[in-house]
């Protein structure tokens, strides 16, 4: 994932004016991060995703402040009312304001998704690259661990343990994170196996650069697009797993709510009382969509050279 040289030159001359050569020494070459940021912001869909996520996060955290209803205090005067001026998303059969409940569930999903994705992708990158680069017994030991965690059906184990972590967010995040990095670790290892035979890696190696440094400087940057796609998918996976577990009653549990518990409750009445299903499901879909669009935007920003026509 190197920055193409034409683009660097282009940026520099654009900033240094017509007599570019004279100003070249004084003009700092923009950092890789700034170039990527610029490319990221120049994409409409990425920007749309970013703005959408911002709106959703603000809504999730500020919405309950503005709304006069609380998710834990039902309005006993209105059961199953359709969306109106007082109850923006309507109410359910117990009189719970659906707006307050949806925002509460959204807060949960956002936090869990971000934490789990960072945890899982970091684990996958470190373990996969270490195993692939060093090989021998390190590879054997790490892959054995990966295989062990892979054969344990994560959804089942988390579900079995659900009575134990009962609404303990930290434990829930660690459990989710521990179970979704293995396949990516295997992919990272596979790619590392071919990357470590490349000339620049061999050159660095024979110049005496240490293994961890080669992984950090040469292996992982080359897998950046894979890892970013993976982190994006992991946010989705984490949110999906959380809402899925909650859907079956193994995740977030009453009295707390999650988008999963709300959707589950609305499942049977989706045809007759559509608002009960549409608002939580819609928020969930928009949240995942925003995250996915950002991931895609980052990917294109990191790697614009990938689309060279054949």
């Amino acid at each position: 994932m190197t920055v193409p040289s034409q683009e660097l030159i282009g940026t520099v001359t654009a900033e240094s004016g017509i007599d570019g050569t004279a100003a070249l020494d004084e003009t700092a070459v923009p950092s890789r991060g700034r170039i990527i940021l610029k490319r990221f912001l120049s994409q409409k869909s990425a920007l749309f995703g970013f703005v959408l996520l911002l709106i959703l996060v603000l809504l999730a955290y500020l919405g309950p402040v503005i709304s006069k209803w609380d998710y834990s205090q039902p309005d006993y005067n209105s059961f199953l009312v359709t969306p109106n001026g007082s109850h923006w998303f309507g109410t359910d059969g117990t009189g719970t304001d659906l707006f307050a409940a949806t925002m509460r569930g959204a807060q949960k999903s956002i936090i869990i998704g971000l934490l789990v994705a960072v945890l899982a992708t970091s684990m996958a990158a470190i373990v996969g690259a270490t195993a692939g680069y060093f090989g021998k017994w390190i590879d054997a030991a790490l892959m054995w661990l990966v295989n062990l965690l892979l054969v344990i059906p994560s959804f089942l184990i988390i579900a079995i343990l659900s009575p134990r972590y009962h609404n303990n967010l930290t434990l829930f995040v660690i459990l989710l994170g521990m179970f979704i990095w293995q396949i990516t670790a295997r992919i990272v290892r596979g790619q590392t196996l071919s990357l470590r035979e490349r000339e620049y890696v061999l050159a660095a190696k024979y110049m005496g650069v240490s293994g961890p440094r080669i992984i950090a400087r040469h292996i992982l940057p080359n897998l950046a697009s894979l890892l970013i796609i993976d982190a994006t998918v992991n946010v989705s996976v984490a949110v999906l797993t959380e809402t899925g577990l909650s859907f079956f009653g193994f995740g977030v549990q009453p009295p707390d709510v999650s988008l999963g518990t709300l959707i589950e409750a609305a499942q049977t009445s989706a045809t007759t009382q559509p608002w009960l299903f549409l608002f939580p499901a819609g928020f969930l879909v928009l949240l995942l969509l925003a995250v996915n669009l950002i991931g895609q935007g980052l990917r294109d920003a990191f790697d614009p050279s990938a689309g060279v026509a054949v």
Partner: protein
Amino acid sequence: MGKYLVRRLVNYVVLVFIATSMAYLLAATSLNPRAHFLGRNPPVPVTTQDDILNRYNLNDKTPVLDRYGTWLDNLAHGNLGRDYDGGYVGANLSRRMWVSGQLLLIGTILGGLVGVAAGAWAAVRHKKATDIALTQGAFFILSCPVFVIAILLQVGATRLNNAVGSRLISFSGQFDPAKPGGFFAHIGDRLDHLILPTITLMLAGASYLMLYQRSAMLDVLGSDYVRTARAKGLRRRTALIKHALRTALIPSVTLFTYAFATIFVGATFTETIFGWHGMGEWFVQTIQGSDTNAVAAITAVVGVLILFASFLQDVVVAILDPRVRVG
């Protein structure tokens, strides 16, 4: 080579054994089968409870390691143990695996084919209308959890059935036992019941695979060997398929092998929502019902299938990528 494969196989068996044992011990200590007797009227005497639970090796008063020992002993004799209500786990398992297999086979294969084809096509048409439409479509579907897609499809089918005035699409269970007609009517009925779950599975599988395939293909398209292939005079089509796609298939194949080898594990949401009594539904029911022996059996099956997938994947990757030397 034979020695290497045997060593690898032994390693896999050990892995499955450890995973299953862990699942058994976790389930035996976390779940509470005695809860089934709570709230019974008239109340079940404790001695009776113990008798029943002892018979099925589910009694929480027996030390967990003793229960584990009994379970291992049974397992060694090919007996997977009993459900809390006395059913045989082994019989349930084989029946449900077959149901799941029927449900998932078509959806998984369709999902894999559509995903790879759409991903590769989108990468080749990078930043053109086709690419944008496919990617955004995949993103949108990926942003819809399976249970949302399934419920939406059900609502849509209900609307359609109401509009037409007859039951055009059925989406509850495997088939309709009351449906008249002979063999072909029955097959037709089964296919009818497969429509919505298959669409659900295909959409979810294809959108996931498509993004990986597109990403891998884009990485490969700019590489030297694809340019070399073009430079030495290969047609664009040949260069793309034989040189680019072949390498770019590796990550997708990894993912697809897992999906394919695990079709007997079932699809939890799809089965639960569409009323298929397969492994996925059982998965949820056993935990809700505190069925320790069944939980352990499911873990074992999942473990065996995933390791089979992993083995298969090593072989396929070695075939596709000559640079990777296994071992």
